[in-house]
Every structure is written in C-alpha cells, then in structure tokens.
C-alpha cells in the first residue's frame, strides 16, 4: 500500500563539506544513507530517518543537518499534524501505534511552576564549598521510635539501604536496553554509591557483582526471577505499574530475545516475553502483602521491598494500602515516565503528573502517620537537579532517573526504542549496534551527570540554609507556586509565590 505519510525529518547535506567518507552510511542503523559509487554521491532516504542525529554528530566535517521536515498541512488547531499522521499510519497498518520514551505531550509540568526559596539576611545561607553538605539518604521503613536501654539501642532496625545521593537509576531492563548500557548503569551506580534498577528482564550473571547497588524487579512476567537473582540485590522491587503505560502489560518482541537475553530472562530464544497487565497473584492489597512477605522470606528479611506503581488517580489511597501491606519503599512513576515500548495512546493519555501524585501520597501518608514506614522514590521525567530538589521538598526521599541517564549515554529521544534499532547502541540487543556503548565511556558520562546534579543540589540546599537533604524532605515551605490554580496549589500543598 502506498504510504501517504511524509518524512518526519529533512536531511540537509552540505556538499562542499561532504567528503564521501560514508561515516553517516555506516552509522545509520535505519539505512537512511547509501553511497552511490557510480555518481560518487551519498543518497539519503528521508522517509527512514528518525532524527536521532547520530550521523550528524559523527560526521567529521559537520556536513549534515537533520531537522524536522517543515512541511505543513492546512493549519488546524484541532487536527494537528501528529493526529493526521497517526490516522494515516493506522489506516495503513491497522494496529496499535507503538512508541518509545516518555510522554511528549504538553501537559503542565509543575516543576516549571514551582520555585525554590533562598536565605536572605534573616537566615544565613551555607557555602557548600566550605561546609559539609549531606546528600546521603537511607531507604527503607523507619521505626516509630528508638528505644535505648543503658545506652544501648534496643530497637531492632529494619533493613536500610544507604545511597550517597538521592538520585537512583530507574528500571531499564536488559533486553530493552543493551548489555553494555546496563553494565554502564551498574558501574556508575557502584562507583557513585547509588543504585541501579535491573528492570523486569532479569540481571545478567556478569552484573551480579554489582548486586550491592542493584534494585531487582519482580514483575508480572517474573523474568529471570529466582532466589539467586532476588538475593543478588540491595532492594527487591515489585513492579505493579509504569508511568508510561499504567494498567497494561508489556511485551518484549521475540526478535529482541537474543541468546544472552534469553539466558537472563530464562525463556527460550525468540519467544515473546509477555508481561501480563496485572501480577496474577496480586488482585488485592492483601495479595500484595502476600508477595511482599514472600520476597522478604526469600531474601531472609535482609532487603527492603519496594513496590512500584504508576501515578494514577487514587495513588494516595493505593500507597496507603501498599505501606500497610508491608512495602518498605513506594515508587511512584508519573505520566511523563519513559518506556522502551508502549502503545502511544496509553503513554499519552493515561496517568497523572508525578508532582501531583507525590504531593498527594506524601500528604496522605503523613495524615495517616505512616509516612515513616516507607521511603518514597519518584520517577517520571526528571530533567535536572531543580526538578529533583523540588521533588524532595514535596516529600520524596529520592528520585529515579532513566531518560536523563540514557541522554547522558547518548540518547536523543528519537522514540524508536521499540524497533530494536538504536543508533546510539542503547535500546537494542543487536550486537553490532550495542558496541556503540563503550561501558568505560558511558560509565564516566553517567557518574559525571550524578556528580553535576549532586553539586547543584548542594548549592541549592546551601542557598536555602540547609546542610542536609534530610532537612528538606517534605519541607514544602521552601516551595512556592507560580501560575497555578488554587486546586493545584492545594494538591501540591504549597503556597503561591509572594504568599
């Protein structure tokens, strides 16, 4: 069927600069560029271009410019280009439109409407360059009180996991991302003293040595879950849902289930790895509790158990149930959370922004006096240290970052993760493309990012006159809203700027 779709991107090649070295030809996994030997020119098939910029970055003479194809349909505020093209796509293919990465729709990003406080005159700010600043964070359920007898601690403490910065790499499963990418996350987490999350695809044997820095997931597919896997971790996380696709399952297409992926997931090569929508042993809070304690039993009560849900309308009530079910950590993933593959219609329309969910959950748990029973990790599109520090002031213990980590490794959010082709070598299991991530380099890029953001958080903390991240947690007085409605301010539990 003739496609009526126009190319999404336009490729401009400066012929004065193009030396026909064909680096672009070799770097494009989508086969956009080809060399025509007869005429000594490089031909670019724009219809295949995904705008990942790999060719442009690697072109040694900067001869390439990849830009959005500027074609226009008749302007229509309702029928925007995207919707027309999606309809064409489905008319031609007759299926669910898949996509990758996080929601790209212009929902209000509350971080951009919240501002932070700083000390002026009446309270001194702290210079983080001179004063010790504490970003160290402990994850896990905290006891109500500590009992001391004769100077000795009598209370038995629940298991805690210490991280040096409140930034954790979010779930990115092997199979969705390449082995080299996952290795880089593991190494960076280990070097910096934070955690990475295996995702639901198992943990390759080679990475078990980073277990002290691993959150391992137990999801509905139970891929690669065995007692050894569960015990090769710092935290076990029950994955109920994901911000990019709340309420639905997922599946890793058979073509991505290569030999090493099959070994890690413990399923035969080439079969679809289906993750059912619910975990079929969890239909209620009571069932959740059953699994939480099953995991605690299997890990000898040595590891905090996290439960991850997508941020949805009743997150607060659900979170309350989760804490009562025994979760030591609650992970909330907002509507802007990323994915390797999700139906576009779900990604773009289901769930709520993380800011609102976090505020609501924190508020609810405080009101019920069980906030200390769990740590809260929030996820879903954290773009910079400002977003993170605001999240902590709104009540989070730590944040999960995944998209930012991928961007640090080279990702340009071309949203083609679901194709299995990733020109940056991240979201692929193709051994040829996977080599593009050199774990030495990617680890460095990731630790640099963690370092940069941690320094920025310290700067902002110092400016507020705070020297430990602990003191900021849930301290909403340090936040003010700008351009927000009353209900928004109410849900966020913050005052408007100037108040």
């Amino acid at each position: 069927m003739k496609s009526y779709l126009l190319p999404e991107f336009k490729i401009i090649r400066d012929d004065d600069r193009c030396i026909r070295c064909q680096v672009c030809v070799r770097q494009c996994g989508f086969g956009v560029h080809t060399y025509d030997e007869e005429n000594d020119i490089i031909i670019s098939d724009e219809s295949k271009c995904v705008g990942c910029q790999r060719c442009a970055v690697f072109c040694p003479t900067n001869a390439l410019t990849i830009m959005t194809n500027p074609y226009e349909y008749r302007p229509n505020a309702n029928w925007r280009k995207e919707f027309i093209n999606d309809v064409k796509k489905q008319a031609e293919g007759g299926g669910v439109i898949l996509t990758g990465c996080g929601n790209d729709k212009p929902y209000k990003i509350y971080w951009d409407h919240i501002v932070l406080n700083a000390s002026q005159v009446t309270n001194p700010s702290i210079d983080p360059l001179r004063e010790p600043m504490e970003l160290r964070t402990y994850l896990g359920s905290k006891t109500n009180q500590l009992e001391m007898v004769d100077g000795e601690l009598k209370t038995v403490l629940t298991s805690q996991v210490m991280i040096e910065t409140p930034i954790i790499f979010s779930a990115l499963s092997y199979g969705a991302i390449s082995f080299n990418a996952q290795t880089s996350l593991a190494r960076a987490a280990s070097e910096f003293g934070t955690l990475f999350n295996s995702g639901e695809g198992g943990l390759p044997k080679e990475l078990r040595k980073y277990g002290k820095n691993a959150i391992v997931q137990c999801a509905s597919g139970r891929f690669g879950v065995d007692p050894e896997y569960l015990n090769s971790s710092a935290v076990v996380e029950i994955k109920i849902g994901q911000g990019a696709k709340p309420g639905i399952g997922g599946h890793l297409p058979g073509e991505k289930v290569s030999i090493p992926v099959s070994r890690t997931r413990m399923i035969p090569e080439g079969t679809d790895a289906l993750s059912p929508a619910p975990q079929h042993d969890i239909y209620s809070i009571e069932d959740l509790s059953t699994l939480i304690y099953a995991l605690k039993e299997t890990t000898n009560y040595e590891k905090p158990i996290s439960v991850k849900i997508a941020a949805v309308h009743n997150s607060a009530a659900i979170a309350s149930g989760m804490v009562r079910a025994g979760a030591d950590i609650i992970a909330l993933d907002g509507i802007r959370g990323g994915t390797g593959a999700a139906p576009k219609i779900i990604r773009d329309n289901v769930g709520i922004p993380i800011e609102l969910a976090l505020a609501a959950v924190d508020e609810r748990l405080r009101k019920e006096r069980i906030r200390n029973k769990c740590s809260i990790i929030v996820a879903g599109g954290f773009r910079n240290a400002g977003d993170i520090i605001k999240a902590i002031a709104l009540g989070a213990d730590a944040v999960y970052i995944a998209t930012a980590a991928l961007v640090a490794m080279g990702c340009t959010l071309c949203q083609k993760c679901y194709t299995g082709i990733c020109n940056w070598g991240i979201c692929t299991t193709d051994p040829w493309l996977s080599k593009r991530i050199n774990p030495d380099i990617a680890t460095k890029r990731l630790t640099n990012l963690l370092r940069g953001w941690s320094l920025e958080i310290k700067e902002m903390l110092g400016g507020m006159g705070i020297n430990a991240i602990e003191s900021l947690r849930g301290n909403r007085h340090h936040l003010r809203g700008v351009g927000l409605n009353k209900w928004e301010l109410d849900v966020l539990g913050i005052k408007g700027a100037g108040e």
Partner: protein
Amino acid sequence: MNNLQNGTSIKIDAKEIFYKDLNNFILDSALKGIKKIILNNVFGQRYIASRLYNIPKIEIEVFGTPGNDLGAFNDGHQITVYGNAQDGVGNTMNEGEIIIHGHAGDILGMSARGGKIFVRDYVGYRAALHMKHYKDKKPIIVIGGTAQDFIGEYMAGGIVILLGLGLKKGESHKPNFVGTGMHGGTIYIRGVVNSFQLGKEVGIVELTEEDHKIIEENVKKYANYFNKDVDEILNNDFIKLIPISKRPYGKLYVY
C-alpha cells in the same frame, strides 16, 4: 517451641507458631544440617520453604493446612503436604518438588521455572499461569482431578498434566479459557474438554511417542505418591494442547 530431633530429622508441633518464627526454625534446622523436617498441626502458616535459598536440599513434611505461597521461590527442596494447600503453591518456584495429598488453591505453580508439583485432587483458578522453561529447566505439574478456569494462562513453557480423576464418565473438565495467551509449553489433558473451553491461542495436536513417554513417566510418579493404579490412568485418551504461536500478539502493532 516443642521439637523432637532424631538424627538428621526433626519434628515440630507448629500449632500457633507465627509463620515467620516457623520459617526461622526451618532455616535454622536446615543450617544445622537437618535433612528432614516434619511439621505437625500446620494451620495457615505461609511461605513454608521459601527461605531456603542456597541451602543443601531438605525434605519437609507438612501435616495440616499450610498457608499461601507454600514453597514460593522454592530452591530445590521437597515438600509433602498431608492435607490441602492454599493459594500460590510453588509460586515462581525454581527447583524441587511439592506433593499435595489433597486439593490446592489458586495460581498453583504460577511463573514456576523448574521443579515438579503433584496434586492428588483438584486445583483452583489459573494453575500454571505464566509457567516457563529455559533449557533443561522445565517445570512439570501433575493434577489428579480437574482445575478451574484459566489453567495455563500466558503459559510460556513447562508441562501440565491434567488427569481428570474423579470426573464422571463422559463428564468434561471444569476449566474454561484453557491456555489463554499461551505461547509456550504443553498441556496434556486426560478426558473430555470441549473446544469452547479452550483459549484462542491454543491448538490441539496429535501426541507423539515422546509425549506418551512424558505422560507415562509423570503419571507413574503421581500414582506412586498417591497410591493410584497407573494402568487405569494411562488406559485413557489424552489430548495435547500447544500454543499456535510463539508470538501470539506479534501482529498487534504498527511501527
């Protein structure tokens, strides 16, 4: 705790012992080198044998009614229940054997990736759900009676043998939606199943020599555990269900 040690076996009255304490006791005993643990008066204690990761294989005999997730994540131990079991028997089990002298509840062997489960009588809903296999790790479930709906749902590997003992002559098996979403593994059913009872992802195929061997081998074990007549069980037709595709949802998407 009242317990009685005799060589490498130990007996305990589990009455009113909190499950965590009971499991502590099992772990401690196993660490001490106990090879066989007999639990009397079990009444709803959960996760029996779940905390035995990386420990030499032991045998556990349960008298009474164990609670949910009996042998969840079981790492190779043998559990025999003299009584009925609850939900989640062998949940995500890795290795070992679970033998139930009675009925079992829902999600029996859910996501199991290895080991064997024998249930003398009936099981509840969604047995063998999302069970899988990898290389030589291939879970096997033998159920003496019949099951409730969704047996073998999302099944990705392993073997289920449903014997239908206790059904009247000509009476069909109970479950509907058998093998819904199934994309791997095999279900053998002895007795009558109507086509409308099957999920749309499964197909019926002829049994091969190899299939008969698998059935025979496991039925023998079943009969041996529960003192049944092998020949009588084998002297009946079996049907074999396998998934139509390794990729049941492969054509759902447009890129």
